[in-house]
C-alpha cells in the first residue's frame, strides 16, 4: 500500500512540478525573446518584465512541488509570491503602454511603491503565507497568512483593470489593432483564469484536476500573447485558435488515455498485471507521445485547409497571376490585370499601383480599381517621401499600422507591397484591407512578396518590349518623314503642271465649245481637277515645311505674350464657333527661345483640330494652360472637349497624312507641321486623351531660359521669305 500511496503522491508532485517548470520555461523564453526583439522599445521592455515575473512565479511553483521540508517550502512560496506581486504591476503598465494610454504619474508611482512594500513584506515577514503542511499529495504546501487576501485582492484589481482596458480597446479598435487586442485579451484571460486558481491552494481548496493542470492555461495564454506581440501584425486569430484547439484535443487524447487508464482503470490493470500494472499506461504514453506530433500536424493541416479555404483560393489565384504576368507585353494591360485580379480574388475594397517616373521625380499612380476608390489615391508620391525611404530601407510589405499616418494614400488598414529589381524600387502595390476585419497572414505576405517580384519582372519586361516597339516606331516614322520629303520633291514638278493645266484649258479653249451645256460640264470638270491638285500641292508644301529650318532666328520671348497675341488673333475665330475659350497663365513671365509666329502657328493648328473635333460636342470648350512642368521646362497644355483620340492612334497622329477629318477637310499635315515647328524649338510635343469622346489634350514643352535682360527681348524685324 505504501508503494501505491507513494506512487500517487509522486504523480501529484510531478504534475505540479511539470506545470511549474512549463510556466517557468515558457515565460522565460518569451521574456527573453520579446526583450531581444527590440530592447529599446518601452513596450517590449515592459512585456518582457511581465513575462519574467510570470516566469519567477513558475519557478516558485516548480520548486514548491519539490520542497521536501517546511523551510524549503517557505523559500519556494516566497519566490512564487515575489513573482505574483510583480505580475499585476507590470501587466497594468504594459497594457496601458501597448494601448497607448497614459497612466496618471502619481498613480503609477503609487502602484510601484505598493509593489515594493509588498515585496518587502513578502521577503521579511510571513504575513502572506506560512506554516507549510502536507496537502494535495504534496509533501509541504503553504497556508494563507493574514495578508494573503490583500495580496489576492491587489492581484485581482490589477488584472481586472487591465483586462477591462483590453476589452474596451478591442471593442473600439479596428482592423489589425482590433485583432492584436483580441489576442491580448484572449491570452491574458486564459492565462489568468488558469493561474488564479492557484490562489485557492492557500485556502486548502483544490478542485482536482484544476490544480495543477490549470497552470498549463498560463502557458497556453502566454503562448497566445507572446506570439501575438511578436508577430501580431501577421497572424490570423482563426489560425492560432485552430492550432491551439487541435493541439489541446490531440494531446488530451494522447496524454489522457494513458493517464486515464492509470487513474480510473488501475484496479482493472492490477487485476490483469498485478504489480507490473503501470507498464501498459507507460507503453501507451510512449507510443502516443511519439505519435502526438504527427497526429497534431495531420489534424492541423486539415483543420487549416477548412478554415483557410478562401485564403488558399486567392493565394492560388495570385500565384497563377504571378506566373502569367510575364506573358503580358503591354504595360497598361499589366497594371489593369494586377489591380483587378487582386481586388477580385482577395475581395479587398480597392487596389492601386504606383510606378517610378524619373522625369517627374515621383511615383505616379498608374492604375487603380474600382473607380469609386479614386479619392483614396493621390496622383503621385514624391521620391523623397518618407514612405519611399522606408520601403527602400526595409524591402518588405508594410501594413498601414506600421506606416502610421500617410498623407498620400488613404490605406485604411491595407497593405503596401514594394516591387524591386535589384536595389531599384520600381513601384509599389497598394492593397486595401481584407474583408470582415480579417488580417493578412504570413502566408499572404509571402504570396504578396512573390507577386511583387513577378510584378517587378513583368514591368521590366513590358518596358523592354515598349522600348523595342518605340525604337521600331521611331525608325518607321523617321523613314516615313524622309520618304514623304523625297516624295514631295519628286512630285512637285508634275504637280505644278497638273495644278495649272485645267485653268489653262478653261481660259483658252472653253470658248471653242459651242454647246453651253457641254461647256459648263468641261468647266466644272476642270475646276474639280484644280481643287484636287490644290489639295495634293498643299500636302507637298506641308511636307517641305516640316524639314525646313526655322524662318526666324530663335530669340528669347515671353510665352505669356505669345499666348496673349495668339488669343487676340484667334479667340474671335474660336468664339465664332460658339466654343468657350479659357486660358490660364502664371503671373511671372516664362521665357523661352523661339519665334512667336511659329509657336502661334502650333496653337492655331491645335485650335483648328479642336474646332473640328468639337463639331458635335457638348459642352464646347478649349482650355489653354501655361505652367512650369518643372524649374526648366515650360508646358503649354491645349485641351478640348471633342471626340478625343483613340489610344492606338495617340502615337501616330503626328505622322504625315494622318487625319481624322473627312478627306475633303484636311490634309493630315497639321499636327505633323506642329511637330516640326516644336522640334525646331527644341521642344517636345505629345497628345493625351482618355479615349474616344473624352476630349484631347495637346501638350508642348519648351526649355525655359532664365536670366533674361530686357534688351534681349527687343523685337527684331523678321526676314520674309519673299523679297
Amino acid at each position: 500500500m505504501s508503494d501505491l500511496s507513494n506512487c500517487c503522491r509522486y504523480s501529484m508532485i510531478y504534475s505540479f512540478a511539470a506545470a511549474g517548470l512549463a510556466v517557468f520555461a515558457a515565460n522565460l523564453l518569451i521574456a527573453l525573446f520579446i526583450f531581444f526583439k527590440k530592447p529599446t522599445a518601452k513596450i517590449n521592455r515592459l512585456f518582457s518584465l511581465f513575462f519574467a515575473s510570470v516566469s519567477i512565479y513558475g519557478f516558485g511553483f516548480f520548486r514548491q512541488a519539490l520542497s521536501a521540508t517546511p523551510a524549503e517550502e517557505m523559500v519556494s512560496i516566497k519566490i512564487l509570491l515575489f513573482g505574483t506581486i510583480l505580475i499585476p504591476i507590470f501587466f497594468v503598465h504594459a497594457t496601458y503602454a501597448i494601448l497607448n494610454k497614459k497612466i496618471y504619474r502619481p498613480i503609477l508611482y503609487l502602484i510601484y511603491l505598493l509593489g515594493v512594500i509588498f515585496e518587502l513584506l513578502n521577503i521579511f515577514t510571513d504575513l502572506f503565507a506560512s506554516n507549510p503542511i502536507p496537502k494535495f499529495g504534496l509533501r509541504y504546501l503553504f497556508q494563507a497568512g493574514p495578508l494573503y487576501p490583500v495580496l489576492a485582492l491587489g492581484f485581482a484589481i490589477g488584472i481586472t483593470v487591465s483586462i477591462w482596458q483590453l476589452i474596451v480597446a478591442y471593442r473600439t479598435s479596428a482592423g489589425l489593432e482590433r485583432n492584436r487586442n483580441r489576442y491580448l485579451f484572449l491570452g491574458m484571460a486564459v492565462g489568468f483564469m488558469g493561474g488564479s486558481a492557484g490562489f485557492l491552494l492557500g485556502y486548502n481548496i483544490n478542485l482536482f484536476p484544476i490544480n495543477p493542470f490549470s497552470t498549463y492555461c498560463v502557458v497556453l495564454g502566454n503562448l497566445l500573447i507572446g506570439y501575438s506581440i511578436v508577430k501580431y501584425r501577421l497572424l490570423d486569430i482563426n489560425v492560432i485558435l485552430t492550432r491551439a484547439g487541435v493541439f489541446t484535443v490531440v494531446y488530451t487524447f494522447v496524454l489522457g488515455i494513458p493517464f486515464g487508464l492509470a487513474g480510473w482503470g488501475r484496479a482493472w490493470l492490477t487485476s490483469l498485471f498485478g504489480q507490473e500494472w503501470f507498464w501498459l499506461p507507460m507503453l501507451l504514453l510512449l507510443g502516443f507521445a511519439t505519435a502526438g506530433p504527427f497526429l497534431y500536424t495531420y489534424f492541423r493541416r486539415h483543420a487549416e485547409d477548412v478554415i483557410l479555404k478562401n485564403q488558399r483560393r486567392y493565394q492560388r489565384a495570385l500565384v497563377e497571376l504571378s506566373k502569367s504576368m510575364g506573358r503580358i507585353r503591354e504595360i497598361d494591360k499589366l497594371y489593369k490585370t494586377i489591380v483587378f485580379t487582386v481586388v477580385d480574388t482577395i475581395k479587398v475594397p480597392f487596389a492601386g499601383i504606383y510606378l517610378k517616373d524619373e522625369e517627374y521625380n515621383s511615383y505616379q499612380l498608374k492604375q487603380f480599381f474600382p473607380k469609386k476608390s479614386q479619392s483614396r489615391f493621390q496622383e503621385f508620391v514624391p521620391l523623397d517621401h518618407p514612405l519611399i525611404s522606408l520601403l527602400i530601407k526595409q524591402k518588405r510589405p508594410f501594413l498601414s499600422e506600421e506606416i502610421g499616418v500617410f498623407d498620400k494614400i488613404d490605406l485604411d488598414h491595407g497593405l503596401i507591397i514594394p516591387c524591386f529589381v535589384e536595389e531599384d524600387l520600381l513601384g509599389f502595390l497598394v492593397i486595401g484591407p481584407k474583408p470582415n476585419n480579417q488580417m493578412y497572414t504570413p502566408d499572404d505576405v509571402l504570396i504578396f512578396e512573390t507577386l511583387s517580384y513577378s510584378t517587378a519582372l513583368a514591368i521590366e519586361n513590358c518596358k523592354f518590349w515598349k522600348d523595342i516597339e518605340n525604337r521600331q516606331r521611331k525608325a518607321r516614322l523617321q523613314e516615313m518623314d524622309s520618304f514623304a520629303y523625297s516624295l514631295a520633291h519628286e512630285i512637285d514638278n508634275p504637280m505644278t503642271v497638273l495644278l495649272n493645266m485645267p485653268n489653262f484649258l478653261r481660259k483658252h479653249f472653253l470658248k471653242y465649245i459651242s454647246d453651253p451645256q457641254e461647256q459648263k460640264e468641261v468647266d466644272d470638270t476642270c475646276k474639280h481637277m484644280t481643287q484636287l491638285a490644290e489639295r495634293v500641292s498643299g500636302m507637298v508644301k506641308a511636307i517641305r515645311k516640316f524639314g525646313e529650318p526655322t524662318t526666324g532666328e530663335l530669340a528669347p520671348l515671353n510665352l505669356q505674350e505669345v499666348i496673349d497675341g495668339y488669343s487676340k488673333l484667334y479667340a474671335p475665330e474660336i468664339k465664332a464657333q460658339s466654343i468657350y475659350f479659357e486660358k490660364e497663365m502664371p503671373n511671372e513671365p516664362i521665357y523661352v527661345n523661339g519665334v512667336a509666329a511659329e509657336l502661334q502657328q502650333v496653337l492655331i493648328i491645335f485650335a483648328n483640330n479642336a474646332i473640328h473635333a468639337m463639331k458635335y460636342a457638348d459642352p464646347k470648350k478649349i482650355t489653354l494652360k501655361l505652367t512650369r512642368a518643372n524649374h526648366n521646362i515650360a508646358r503649354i497644355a491645349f485641351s478640348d472637349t471633342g471626340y478625343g483620340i483613340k489610344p492606338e492612334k495617340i502615337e501616330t497622329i503626328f505622322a504625315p497624312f494622318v487625319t481624322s477629318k473627312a478627306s475633303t477637310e484636311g490634309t493630315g499635315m497639321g499636327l505633323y507641321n506642329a511637330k516640326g515647328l516644336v522640334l525646331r524649338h527644341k521642344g517636345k510635343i505629345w497628345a493625351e486623351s482618355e479615349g474616344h469622346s473624352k476630349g484631347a489634350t495637346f501638350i508642348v514643352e519648351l526649355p525655359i531660359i532664365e536670366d533674361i535682360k530686357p534688351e534681349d527681348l527687343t523685337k527684331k524685324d523678321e526676314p520674309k521669305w519673299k523679297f
Partner: protein
Amino acid sequence: MGDFKLLIVDDEESIIFLLQKIYEKSGYKVFVAADGVTAVEIFEKERPDLSFIDVHMPYSPIDGIETLQRIKEIDKNAYCVMITRIDDRITVAKARSLGALHYIPKPFETEELDKCINEVKQKLGKQ
C-alpha cells in the same frame, strides 16, 4: 502684247511644256531652255523682258543660281524670278544678293507668275 519676251529655264520638260503653252496663248513671245548654258545663250541673243529660272537643275551643266549670275553679268538690270523646289534659305539669300526679283516655290500656280509678269510690265511701261 506680242513684244513682251519671256524666257523659261527649267530642266523639267513638263514645266516648259506648261508655261510655253500658257504664255504663248496669252500672246507673249516665249523662249525656253532646258539648261543654264542654253538659257544664257538665248538671253544674250534675245534679251527677254523677264526670265523664270529654275534653281534646281540636275541635268544642266550650270544650276539656276549660276545661270542667274551669268545673265546678270550680261545685263545687270535683267528681271529674273527664281523658281525652285527647295525652300533653302541660303539659295534664297544668294538669289537676292544677285539681284533676283522674286522667289517662287514649287508647286506654284500660274497666278503667282502672272503677278511677276504684270509687275515687270509696269516697270517697263509696257501694256
